[in-house]
């Protein structure tokens, strides 16, 4: 039965050839040294290489597009330079999960030899690449991933964030609802996964601290629930005066539409974390989203000069309004620019040190904010979905003041 012949050897050769595909990028040795790249040059000009790792495929692809646009817009407006360094950007696809995100970060670090990594939507990826950055002593600026641990319990000096934390956004809503007449009953629900748990925890903590009472909770299966009727009926029967929820992407669309279809929208007001109505989900929700109120650190409707200019140039360039994802990445470029003005070198320690000293970012579209530790202390806004000139927008209702990452 055995017929080893020439073709198997060919196959083995093929195996060898195939295995060598990724090698084409660079030759060298993987043995010796701790994995650090070439020592970075001093502060006197030259180039800084940035790996922009954002989703180009999968369910977060739309976020990736917004992020890349925010990045390119800032660079376009500022001559493509951070301090005296010319910025060279390498884009890599984060994909949907750490299965794709981790290799992408590894690729820009090890194969493209970037000095700084920017991006990341998925929290698991941001947490999972911590050791890569720590060991190579390179800086990562997270422009979305909201897990508290990234800059909290599992923090490393090399990972900073220009976005938000899940609990920060929902904590603001907890305080607000406790103060606005819903003390005696809110129903809280979020998908059954880590971010959902964090959002609910952040909300519950401040809501109860303000004297509020959560009358019921539910955890719909994450990514597998397309019918929320059983949960909606529970909300109705719980006697809740309001609903607080966190959903994003297709789940946000489905939930908001069904909330209206099953008649809850007119009787039990819907509140949520800002992602419920942010970005590309809002047009798909349509009129079902009208009146939904959310908290977030950004809205394209914010009335400040920096945001007006940002929205105007963004819309002129890309034909649509920016989302918080665009603003977060725009700000990442902004803070890196400030840091590289003073940083003595391009290694993670030098840039991290410089980032700690940039003070208030006063020209951010989201309003002035500062780094508290490695994550923003920023204003949170109460927003309400309204129709302006036939388009649904997140109108800013109230400024809820500055908040940092809750402990």
């Amino acid at each position, binding site marked *: 039965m055995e017929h080893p012949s020439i073709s198997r050897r060919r196959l083995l050769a093929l195996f060898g050839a195939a295995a060598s595909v990724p090698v084409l990028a660079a030759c060298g*040795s993987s043995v010796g040294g701790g994995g650090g790249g070439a020592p970075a040059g001093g502060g006197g000009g030259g180039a800084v290489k940035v790996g922009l790792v954002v989703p180009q495929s999968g369910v977060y692809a739309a976020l990736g597009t917004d992020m890349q646009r925010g990045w390119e817009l800032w660079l376009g407006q500022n001559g493509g330079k951070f301090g005296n360094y010319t910025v060279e950007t390498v884009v890599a696809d984060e994909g949907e*999960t750490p299965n794709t995100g981790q290799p992408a970060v590894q690729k820009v670090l090890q194969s493209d030899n970037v000095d700084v990594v920017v991006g990341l939507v998925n929290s698991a990826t941001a947490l999972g690449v911590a050791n890569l950055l720590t060991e190579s002593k390179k800086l990562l600026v997270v422009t979305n991933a909201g897990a508290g641990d990234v800059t909290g319990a599992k923090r490393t000096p090399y990972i900073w964030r220009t976005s938000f934390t899940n609990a920060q956004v929902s904590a603001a809503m907890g305080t607000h609802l406790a103060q606005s007449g819903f003390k005696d009953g809110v129903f809280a629900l979020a998908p059954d996964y880590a971010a959902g748990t964090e959002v609910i925890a952040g909300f519950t903590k401040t809501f109860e601290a303000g004297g509020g009472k959560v009358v019921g909770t539910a955890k719909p299966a994450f990514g597998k629930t397309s019918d929320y009727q059983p949960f909606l009926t529970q909300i109705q029967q719980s006697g809740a005066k309001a609903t607080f929820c966190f959903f994003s992407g297709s789940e946000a669309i489905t939930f908001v539409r069904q909330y209206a279809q099953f008649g809850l929208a007119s009787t039990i007001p819907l509140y949520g974390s800002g992602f419920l109505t942010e970005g590309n989900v809002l047009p798909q929700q349509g009129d079902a989203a009208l009146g939904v109120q959310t908290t977030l650190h950004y809205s394209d409707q914010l009335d400040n000069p920096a945001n007006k200019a940002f929205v105007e140039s963004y819309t002129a360039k890309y034909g649509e309004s920016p989302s918080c994802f665009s603003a977060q990445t725009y700000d990442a470029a902004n803070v890196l620019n400030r840091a590289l003005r003073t940083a003595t070198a391009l290694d993670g320690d030098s840039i991290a040190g410089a980032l700690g000293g940039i003070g208030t970012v006063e020209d951010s579209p989201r309003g002035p904010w500062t780094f508290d530790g490695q994550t923003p202390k920023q204003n949170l806004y109460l927003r309400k979905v309204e129709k302006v000139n036939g388009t649904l927008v997140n109108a800013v209702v109230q400024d809820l003041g500055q908040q940092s990452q809750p402990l």
Partner: protein
Amino acid sequence: MTAIEAPTVPGGAPASAPRVTRARTGIIAVAVLVVLAAAPFMLAPFATTTLTRVLVFALFAVSLDLLVGVTGLPSLGHAAYLGAGAYAAGWVSINVTAEAPVPLLVGAGFGALAAALTGWVTVRSHGVFFLMLTLAIGETLQQLADTWETVTGGANGLTGIPAVRLAGTPLANAGFTYWYVLAVGVIGFALVVMVARSPFGAALRGIRDNEPRMRALGYSTARYKYAVIVMAGAVAGLAGALLVAQQRLVTPADMGFATASFALLAVIIGGAGSLWGACLGAALVIIIRDALGPSLDGHGTLVLGIVFVLVVYLLPRGAAGLRIYRRRR
């Protein structure tokens, strides 16, 4: 080393192979091993890491091939056991010790345990039924990993896993990790080959080819199937421990439908039943996904799907069947 690379053609009796052939096979096997062992000296760290991923996935595919190719049990839930081993190895590395054999043994043990706890549901089924039941089991275990946040970290994954330590020294760089994975992978591969060539393996092939006859011959086929499911689970768990050594992170995505179906693709592309073919298939899958995918706008899956469909048509025995075709011509 001869035993390791000799292909196990379906129904073939490797021991009867002519001496010259065995020698040639041995030479090829040694050559491949030497090239693999020397790779980190020649490759940049990212290429070495990619090759490490190939090795991990190859061992996983080989463990699946023990079910699919050798026993004829197509599983779409095998990634669950990879995940069980990975989580267990990761947990032990964080909370107890990352000293070398411990995570491996724990990983293999938990892979086997998970397979033992769930496998009994499937032993009376076969063919597409087995496919569906294992799919359901895989989905359920993945959900468990997603929900059980205190142990698994939920969707954020189990992070902060320390590097494997060998005699007290952590394997901090890509090259050393690669050798560690290679060494363990070769041992795992050898174990699977030994199982496949043993009388037990012959009985498994008997079940694959004609289960009722085996039953008539007095074999308790359900017991054999249960045993091989647990063994495959153990090897998958071992691969899980290697996965942790390489990526130092486990998430529910590692044990999902995508991982399971990619492994099945690897096995079929390589030729079900051919253990080295499974390695070849695994290499192709990982290279398309990790090295080519990013430059195809994330459409690596499209390429994989097309390759897969073509292989099913053109190479009924997968890449391993190539030479048979040639011979007939």
